[in-house]
């Protein structure tokens, strides 16, 4: 049989099988199990109605359990056993082995960097694009262009950006646009402004922002409000913020004192620390379109009168945007942010296709793939998978809760 025909037959059998299941099981419930006749008719109807949802949901729950639930349990089991020792239970040995690996901590650090930068940048750029394209004639064209990367696969986008970052030996024509731009800098005042002062200022302002956030997190502690858990979370959050501030400050200093190799083409993806950002750009490029579409719809949903009232109240365009528009679409921003966060935590393709985790760009998902399928270390690989799941779950739950709130 030709494959196409086989496919069609499969679809036909599958669909009619589903329909048959729903129809016949419903028939069985109503006619045989709890028929709405006889002395217990009313009770039977109620019972049938209680069973019916489970009847209809049953196949889906079963399939999801098989394909999602079981693998989680199995991965957990694998992470606690050792295949080379005949699947003996080894407790947390895999985890401690993993925690002792610098590559794992590198992946953790990079994942955290991705987690902070990509959702923030995508949401910010998306919001900016949504607001700026809102009222102009060619706004829809601009929006389509910004949205288009969404249609490109991560691997495809990686290939595109690999070309952007491409380096040819000095003296040759550079085909990578970044190097072509880089070679324009010759070490003069313009180079100082753009390559030293600007990044340093950006890093300093980032440090200032995270320090302020840390302060905001810590301030309520002085008034001793909230439970111990909340306090611990606040202290933890503030510590992370301060750590970021420290990193940013030290990097600002580094940026300022580093001698830059003007005139020499750079292999961008091999520059430690910064190559992470070159990879992030790919994902930001893709996710900005998503954020823009959702936020643009949300912005349009804001009642026009509240904006007119703000104009009459004397608010300037910035105040209208930040004090009237953004607070009104805050729930949507949170949903967009957390959705992108989930994508980021699972990021694999981009790193795999561009650097494969070399030059300190490892991330958790690629680390897991490395351990599972290249090193064939099922124990550590599964342990890292469990770590990723633990990181994703709270954000996922929060995302679902927020999205439901949004729907209400």
């Amino acid at each position, binding site marked *: 049989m030709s494959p196409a025909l086989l496919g069609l037959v499969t679809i036909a059998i599958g669909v009619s099988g589903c329909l048959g299941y729903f129809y016949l099981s419903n028939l069985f419930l109503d006619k045989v199990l709890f028929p709405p006749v006889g002395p217990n008719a009313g009770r039977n109807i109620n019972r049938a109605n209680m069973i019916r949802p489970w009847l209809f949901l049953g196949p889906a729950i079963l399939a999801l359990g098989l394909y999602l639930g079981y693998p989680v349990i199995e991965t957990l089991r694998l992470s606690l056993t050792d295949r080379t020792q005949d699947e003996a239970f080894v407790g947390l040995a895999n985890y401690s082995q993993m925690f002792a690996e610098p590559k794992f901590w590198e992946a953790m650090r990079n994942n955290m960097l991705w987690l902070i930068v990509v959702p923030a940048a995508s949401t910010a750029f998306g919001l900016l694009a949504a607001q700026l394209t809102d009222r102009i004639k060619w706004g829809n064209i601009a929006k389509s262009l910004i949205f288009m990367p969404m249609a490109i696969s991560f691997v495809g986008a990686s290939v595109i950006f690999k070309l952007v970052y491409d380096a040819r030996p000095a003296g040759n024509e550079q085909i990578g646009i970044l190097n072509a731009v880089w070679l324009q800098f010759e070490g003069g005042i313009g180079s100082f402004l753009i390559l030293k002062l600007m990044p340093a200022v950006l890093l300093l302002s980032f440090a200032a922002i995270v320090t302020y956030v840390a302060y905001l997190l810590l301030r309520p502690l002085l008034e001793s409000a909230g439970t111990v858990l909340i306090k611990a979370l606040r202290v933890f959050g503030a510590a992370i913020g301060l750590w970021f501030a420290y990193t940013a400050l030290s990097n600002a200093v580094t940026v300022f004192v580093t001698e830059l190799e003007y005139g020499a083409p750079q292999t961008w993806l091999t520059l430690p620390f910064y190559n992470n950002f070159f990879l992030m750009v790919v994902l930001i490029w893709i996710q900005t379109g998503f954020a823009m579409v959702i936020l643009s719809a949300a912005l349009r949903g804001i009642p026009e*009168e*509240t904006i007119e*009232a703000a*104009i009459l*109240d004397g608010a300037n365009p910035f105040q209208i945007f930040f004090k*009237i528009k953004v607070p009104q679409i*805050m729930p949507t921003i949170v949903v967009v942010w957390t959705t992108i966060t989930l994508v980021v935590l699972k990021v694999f393709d981009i790193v795999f296709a561009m650097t494969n985790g070399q030059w300190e760009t490892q991330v958790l998902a690629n680390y897991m793939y490395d351990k599972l399928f290249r090193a064939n270390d099922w124990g550590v690989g599964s342990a890292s998978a469990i770590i990723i799941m633990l990181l994703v779950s709270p954000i996922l739950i929060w995302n679902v809760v927020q999205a439901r709130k949004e729907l209400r």
Partner: protein
Amino acid sequence: MADLVLKDVAKSYGQVNVLSNIDLEIEKGELIVFVGPSGCGKSTLLRMIAGLEHITGGTLEIDGTLVNDVPPSQRGIAMVFQSYALYPHLTVRENMSFALKIAKMSTAEINERVEKAAKTLQLHNLLDRLPKELSGGQRQRVAIGRSIVRDPKVYLFDEPLSNLDAALRVATRIEIAQLKESMPDSTMVYVTHDQVEAMTLASRIVVLAGGGIAQVGTPLELYERPENEFVAQFIGSPAMNLLPGKITGTGETTTVALDAGGTATSTVPSRAEDMGRAVNIGVRPEDLMTTDGPAIFTGTVNITEALGEVTLLYFQPQGGADPIIGKLQGIHPDLKGQQVALTADPSKVHVFADTQSLLYRDRPIKEIATKAH
């Protein structure tokens, strides 16, 4: 002294003229109501005063200053929207203090103003609530409070009662009237399509029609001496009856022989050259009364509507014209299908030539009113 002066104000969107030749002077302390059918441009005019719409022709002065190109917030106006337009993410207190915070007023003064406005509007228990936790009437009060705290020269109301249910509408209307009384110096411009609101609240009414002003006057002026057929029919419910005829007697009083057969006498004066002129006489349903003598109108009652207090009689004239309506005091259940003769006091009979009342014959005829009608 005039607080708000509009001179030859016009609004057009490209080739489409929405408003033209708007000349209006609003005195300090007046409550002016813009009224008119939907699409007449009354809200557009209000939004032009507010600064939310660009003025494409003429000049607008507030308190003696030309404000055509002054941004809305510096015009000294405050506006109350039909949909309240409260900021949903801010509490009542924050909603009311938003403009003051933008203006960088001190916290103490903001609090003082908000408290004072809250007291006037009985909002002091609601200050920490979000708009979604308030009822429609409370939201409207907050919207008004948001205007009061700014202490503007001119208050603008854009159909503020339209989103309220009937009972609340009456209550809030009275509240607005009391508010106006407590602030005798503040000028208010109020847009509505509801003529009851217009008649009860206004010190003067501006009837807008077909992109221009049909008439400006006190509520009773518009009711008793309408300038044209449009105003005559727009003010009052049911609308004024118009009956075609020819002038047969001129002088201090005018006699009109109606095409349908009756004769009407009006205290509206006419000139000798008016003899034989084709006119419409206008009589309000409530001014018609049954008679045994000479009648303005005689016909068979088609439908009666007994409202208890009054009974409405509908006569279907020949040729599918608008029905003639009579409003009789009391209950008259037996009049349906009966032949009834109706007349009216000569002082209650209006005479319109070319849609313009003969009372205002020296004023130019307003094309717009006929067009809108």
